């Protein structure tokens, strides 16, 4: 078990509590990193994120792009010899970063998640067209991907009207105490 740094215990314990994962067992074999399909889009490799927390480098981990680029595909956790749930750690760190008001390294990804949840809040289900429109508006970027969007419309891959849950109250209840 590796223990270094001052804040280490605090953040490490919080992330452990949030994710329920004991990542102290990580011995940095890099299996996760070698397996990750999105390594190129990350500033720190997945095992390095674990290393940062082990070393008490809280800020750096929370500011990383890695925690946002990770899609939770579980490719890494399926082959980790220590059965460490790496995406759950990333989840914990993302929540922490939002809670602490840290500058988000990948605002587009956060904005996308927010738009998805907005439609779920409204309809109980996602509505792709609205998600994309609002996401693009926020980015002030309506033109990129336009051709693809139109093609999807033509192929009826984007429904104009959302599919909705009838029991609106139940959905409100889910979103109320967040």
């Amino acid at each position, binding site marked *: 078990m590796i223990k270094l740094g001052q804040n280490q215990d605090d953040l490490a314990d919080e992330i452990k509590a949030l994710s329920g994962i004991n990542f102290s067992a990580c011995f940095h074999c890099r299996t996760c990193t070698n397996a990750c399909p999105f390594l190129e889009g990350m500033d720190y490799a997945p095992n390095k994120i674990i290393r940062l927390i082990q070393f008490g480098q809280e800020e750096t981990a929370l500011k990383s792009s890695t925690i946002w680029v990770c899609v939770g*595909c579980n490719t890494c956790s399926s082959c980790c010899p220590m059965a460490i749930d790496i995406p759950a750690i990333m989840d914990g760190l993302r929540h922490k970063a939002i809670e602490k008001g840290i500058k988000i390294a990948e605002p587009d990804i956060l904005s996308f998640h927010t738009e998805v949840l907005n439609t779920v809040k409204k309809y109980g289900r*996602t509505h792709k067209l609205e998600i994309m429109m609002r996401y693009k508006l926020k980015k002030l970027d309506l033109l990129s991907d336009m051709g693809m969007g139109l093609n999807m419309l033509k192929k009826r891959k984007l429904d104009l009207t959302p599919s909705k849950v009838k029991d609106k109250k139940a959905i409100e209840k889910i979103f109320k105490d967040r």
Partner: protein
Amino acid sequence: MKKSSKTGEIYYKPPKLKYSFFPGCSLKASGHENTMSLMKFCDRVNIELKELEDWNCCGSSSAHSINHSIAENLPMRNISLVPKGVPLLIACPSCLLRMKSMYLKIKGDEALKQEYENRWGQPFDEELEIIHFFEIFSRIRLEDYIENPRGKLKNLKVAVYYGCMLSMPPDLKDEKSYYGIMEKTLSKLGAEIAPYGYGMRCCGTYLSAAKPQIAQTVVNEIVSRAMEAGAECLVTACSMCHLNLEIRCTIKNPIPTLHFSELLSMALDVKDQKKWFPRHIVDPVPMLKKRGLITS
């Protein structure tokens, strides 16, 4: 008992299987052709799917990424809607993961169980079975419904694509793995499998929207490797993967991507292709015609 039209032999007709069906947002909307063909297939193999009444989004990666309480409560409500004694069948790997993880979490946590029961006014169903569509291949035999299975997808060379659905987080490690089920089933129907080594590479999921460049790189790699291996089409078991493979592929003249359920339905002589294929970005019709698998 049913008589075979050709040979007059009597063969066994298995009992009807009944499931609650959770489509999820992808299958319901962009992947509607996946739902249509899946329903048809199930109908032909004597499986009754009843859509889960008033289901909601499972929360997918987005709820998981930014809000714990919502990520837990969305699947919880769905679980509370399942009629007792009927297994819940899910075809979307991502919905399955969210729902199953949550179900097992409640099962193993008395306090959470209490919270669930108070909130959703339902006793927690300890016996509820949540299964992926793949599980039905352990419960039915295709041979019971198809007379000459090997002739059905004859000579079609396919690359099967599971995406990350076979990858399981540690909390689901004890779950059954369905590795090989598409290969096995499609070869049984006469298709030839092109091995290409990228069948389990994640498709990029929502990065396709938020970071198109990253998604494009992985998608192009998957499709081009399948083509190098000689595949004439890719076959997916996930609507979202299907969409990403189609919209984020920028290589010239890519092979089409078919839903596993579409090929299954075709093997059972369902003639609804005109409802499914116009919804594909890469038209599979010319290739299927060339192979003599469809006529019009």
